[in-house]
């Protein structure tokens, strides 16, 4: 059985392997710096804080009224002749999508990029039932050929260099070995065009759902989503329930923020507004449109202090800017959602037991919060998660250390005693061993003969 649970419990094992991979780190550094430079340039002409505040307000409003907005969206989508399915869990979503495919005797599906389908592990699920499901986003296509999972929310193959991609495409689809990006894109396009022409069903995500008119908005750059949603008989949209926003006019705020935050583009090459199946006077478009809305732990966050995590528009800016992500890459997180936002979303969607270390895998530098286009206090959210996790663990070595630490700090005389003991033992192997997380990689500072308070006291004595 395909499991939808993340592998984040293995984070400590996974990151150690990834952090030692120098090539990975070089690939990530190059790509993220490029993305960030472009991001910063693209925002130069706008008042980022102003836009962000507006976006945050809309998201706060939307998430606080999630149920009302969802039923409004559903009503309008029905009016547009779409079927809407509300899936509590990945299993229910997968079963519904499989049922749609089987009812139409679908053999081949073309799929555009969607993180929610990754959350569902939808592709391996459908393939298990003999339905060929082809990723048509170039990055996702590369990842699928490599038999891997995406390592970034918006740039799934970011961990691979151009040369590695050229080699992969040479091995898998038999093209000439040439790492010119234009050549590679052209060859991939040829291979994918065949798939588009023969597929019966298309699957896409949706970046936004507009409640007032039942429209799903798909943002992309390659035109593959446009094809996956229009050149097929059946189109299934799969997205999270938190993507719903009240009004069409709200889009003008998000459109300015999303492309810039993700790739430094003022606007992505394609923005598809999908309202429903082909109408009588229209030449193309699918006969059926299904909209699958995944909950999977989302609605439970409404009204909690983590509600704002639902604002996320999956731009990936917090990953690009995160020095931890850049050191270990997305696969280390063991989750569909890596990076700072992943360290929140993974324990929140799948339960903290499945990702106990992720909220701690941050230096809390706050760079993620600084770039977040919808105003999520990401690093403060991580801190709050740490508090929740540790409130439940009263036992263990670490809890004992902090209890002792607190007891020492609450009594100035104990603190002074501790200070004297530290001076006696500081250069002994016991200390080096106790602090091996430090001393294995760095020198310990040499403790001076006297603490400040001792110096202060003796100076005052002289006065």
């Amino acid at each position: 059985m395909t499991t939808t649970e993340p592998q984040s419990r293995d984070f400590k094992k996974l990151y150690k392997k990834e952090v030692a991979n120098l090539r990975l780190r070089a690939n990530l550094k190059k790509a993220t710096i490029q993305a960030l430079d472009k991001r910063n340039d693209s925002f130069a002409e706008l008042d980022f804080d102003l836009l962000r505040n507006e976006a945050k307000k809309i998201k706060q409003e939307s998430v606080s009224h999630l149920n009302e907005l969802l039923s409004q969206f559903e009503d309008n989508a029905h009016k547009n002749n779409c079927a809407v399915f509300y899936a509590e869990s990945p299993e229910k979503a997968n079963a519904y999508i499989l049922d749609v495919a089987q009812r139409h005797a679908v053999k081949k599906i073309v799929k555009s990029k969607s993180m929610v389908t990754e959350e569902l592990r939808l592709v391996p699920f459908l393939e298990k039932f003999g339905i060929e499901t082809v990723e048509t986003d170039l990055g996702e296509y590369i990842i699928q050929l490599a038999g891997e999972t995406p390592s970034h929310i918006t740039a799934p193959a970011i961990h691979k260099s151009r040369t590695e991609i050229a080699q992969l495409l040479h091995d898998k689809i038999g093209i000439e070995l040439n790492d010119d990006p234009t050549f590679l894109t052209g060859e991939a396009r040829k291979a994918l065009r065949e798939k588009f022409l023969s597929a019966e069903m298309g699957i896409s995500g949706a970046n936004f759902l507009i409640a007032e008119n039942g429209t799903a908005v798909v943002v992309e750059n390659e035109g593959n989503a446009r094809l996956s949603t229009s050149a097929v008989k059946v189109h299934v949209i799969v997205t999270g329930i938190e993507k719903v926003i009240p009004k069409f006019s709200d889009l003008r705020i998000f459109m300015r923020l999303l492309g810039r935050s993700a790739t430094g583009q003022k606007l992505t090459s394609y923005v598809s507004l999908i309202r429903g199946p082909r109408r009588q006077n229209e030449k193309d478009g699918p006969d059926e449109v299904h909209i699958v809305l995944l909950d999977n732990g989302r609605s439970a966050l409404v009204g909690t202090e983590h509600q704002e995590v639902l604002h996320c528009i999956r731009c990936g800016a917090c990953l690009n800017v995160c020095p931890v992500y850049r050191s270990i890459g997305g696969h280390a997180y063991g989750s569909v959602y890596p990076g700072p936002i992943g360290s929140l979303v993974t324990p929140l969607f799948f339960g903290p037991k499945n990702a106990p270390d992720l909220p701690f895998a941050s230096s809390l530098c706050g760079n993620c919060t600084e770039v977040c286009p919808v105003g999520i206090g990401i690093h403060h959210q991580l801190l709050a998660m740490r508090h929740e996790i540790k409130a439940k663990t009263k036992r263990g070595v670490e809890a004992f250390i902090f209890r002792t630490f607190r007891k020492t700090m609450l009594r100035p005389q104990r603190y002074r005693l501790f200070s004297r003991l530290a001076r006696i033992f500081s250069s002994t192997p016991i200390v080096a061993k106790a602090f091996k997380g430090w001393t294995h990689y760095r020198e310990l500072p040499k403790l001076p003969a006297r603490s400040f308070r001792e110096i202060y006291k003796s100076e005052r004595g002289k006065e």
Partner: protein
Amino acid sequence: MRVFLFVPCFIDQVFPNVAVSSMKVLKHLGCDVVFPEHQTCCGQPAFNSGYRDEARLMAMHEVNALLTLTHSPVAAAKYDFDFKHDYIVGPSGSCVAMIRNFYPEILADDPRFEDVSKNMAKRTYEFSEFICKVIGADRFSGKLQATVSYHDSCHALRELGVKDGPRKILERIEGLRLIELPYNEVCCGFGGTFAVKYPEISVVMADEKLQNFYQTGADILVSADSSCLMHLEGRARRSGSLKRFAHIAEIMSESIDRKP
């Protein structure tokens, strides 16, 4: 103007010269500096590691201790601190952020501390920030032949909004040349217990920061946070580097000595 000097525990124990220098500079600028002797730790290590209850208890102790000069803080009913005229100043961006940004939050549900922590937060400053915002950077001048780079600690930068201040101060030192680090807003990888929980990641970040520092050719890396410097210096020493890592208060103090 009276300053209650906030000396975070690791500055007291490991970097006393930072506190000595801070006191000297503040006195030089005309402040009446006192050291509340019952202070210990602000609670930040526990707070950031998830131990909120332990951090709360430490915060309560520290509030009483920092505002009290004469009697034992345990019995403190009246504070010596004058909320209208006195200031709390600490040479550590992250510990000051703990008091200013997080004390009001973690003590909000305790009537004994709710107002005090809020009022205290309004009077608490990071050392370089205090000099720029309250005293005025132009009141300071010094002389020191040195080439330095400045490291923005994340807490000073993002929690407190300290960015231009330390640079303005360094510009006031005759003979000192400041060369900016490339990517100066990227974290150095310290992150408190993060440095020992995920040391492999932490030192990758340190090495990146050190490379940028070496690239500038500067002799000294200056910062408003000794914790970042402890981590960077520890890593640099391991690979044999002889570069100097100094708190901005130490550089200021030395520059006063050299100015006739």
